[in-house]
């Protein structure tokens, strides 16, 4: 299903947390802080996008000729 090897939500969240920690620790040159800030904003946008991407696919595996196929699962019975 998800074949693309993009960053996971968790990885991005963790990275963002690290950036925030570094930024708040204080002793960093301003231009370095701003570079980090830009990176953090990109991560933040990525995370918000992931969260608003509100689709879930629900599939059920059906056995067919010694193999399985995915079919949409209708949860309303």
């Amino acid at each position, binding site marked *: *299903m*998800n074949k693309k090897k993009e960053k*996971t*939500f*968790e990885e991005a*969240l963790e990275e*963002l*947390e690290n*950036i*925030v920690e570094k*930024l*708040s620790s204080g002793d*960093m040159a*301003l*231009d370095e*802080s*701003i570079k980090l*800030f*830009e990176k*953090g*904003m*990109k991560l*933040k*946008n990525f*995370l*918000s996008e*992931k*969260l608003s*991407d*509100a*689709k*879930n*696919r*629900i*599939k*059920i*595996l*059906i056995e067919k000729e010694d193999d*399985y196929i*995915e079919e949409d*699962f209708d*949860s309303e019975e």
Partner: protein
Amino acid sequence: MPTKKIYTVTELNNSAKNILEEKFPSLWVQGEISRFTLHSSGHMYFTLKDSSCAVDSVMFRRENIKLDFSPGQGVEVLVKGRLSLFAPQGRYQLVVEEMKEKGTGELEEKFRKLKEKLFKEGLFDEKHKKKIPAVPRLIGIVTSPTGAAVRDILNVIKRRFSNVDLIIYPSRVQGSLAAGDITRGIEVLNSRYPEMDAMIVGRGGGSIEDLWPFNEESVARAVFNSKIPVISAVGHEIDFTICDFTSDMRAPTPSAAAELVVKNKEDLLRRVSRLERSMVDSVRGKIKLVSSSCRNAFDSAVLTRPFKIIEERIQQADYLEEKLTTVLKHGMEIRTHRLNTLAGTFKSLSPRKTLERGYSITYILPEKKPVKSSSSARRGQRMETVLASGVVISEITATEKEK
């Protein structure tokens, strides 16, 4: 009379009731039912006893309609409930919320033996437990497609973080063929979806016989061998199965399993915006700090070592302004007016004011690098000098070291 507190009986009973309810909000008790009555209101009244003691108990209709067996005199049960006190009679009682029949001899014995065997093999060891990812994208479910469990799980997941894909492996969950189905389901999901983040294996409540497939050795081992983390969610909170022990995490019910695996979307959104805020605050604080130290530099050091300090600070301010503008252009979600304010701060540090006082800035051409030392300039190079009004281009005829 001394100033002792004198209770009315009502106050006494109410105080005792409060203490009991606070101290025992949830507990498990094992015992035998006696003096059982099913009142016309639908509530069940009985005492739980062992060889020497007894406690009054009640199981209200709301709870007892969910029972899958009929409790009665002499039945050994395990109950979950809370303590309370029936104030009108000053009798304390156990308010039962869940009740489970203690397994009948043979099954109980099988359960105990298998549990002991697998425990000795180390299949329950904490060190084998895999972590459930905080934000999974693909979740498997091995359960009956028509059962209560799948409905409960889907309901929870739809209410929560919905950016998640689900694959259901339809399996029987009771009867002699169920264990084979469940085992195959776990294996099929592992081989077809190695990227799967977690799977929920379970079913809704039922009698000990109904839940039995989850106590089969083949299921317990398939759960243990799964590369994908397994959350076991069998029956109600009160039901423990061998599959629970070999799983990576036990959930008290299928809904609870879904809640464990799928985070609340609102919580995540809040967490992300909190991080954003703290990031903006730190950077803003830092910029304030730099700009105030710029001002200090102008105020104090300008007369003694004018060029070095001014140039450096001006350059820094220019650089930052440019940087911040880039950030803005990229549409980063810092609030625009806030950034503008910051940019304004830097503008006020612009060299113009200093130039008006008669200072000037000189750049080496063609790189337009500010000259800070005569050693970086060579004879014959052209220079641009920026004045308060206008620019002068000149050529270097000689350089001298500082005195």
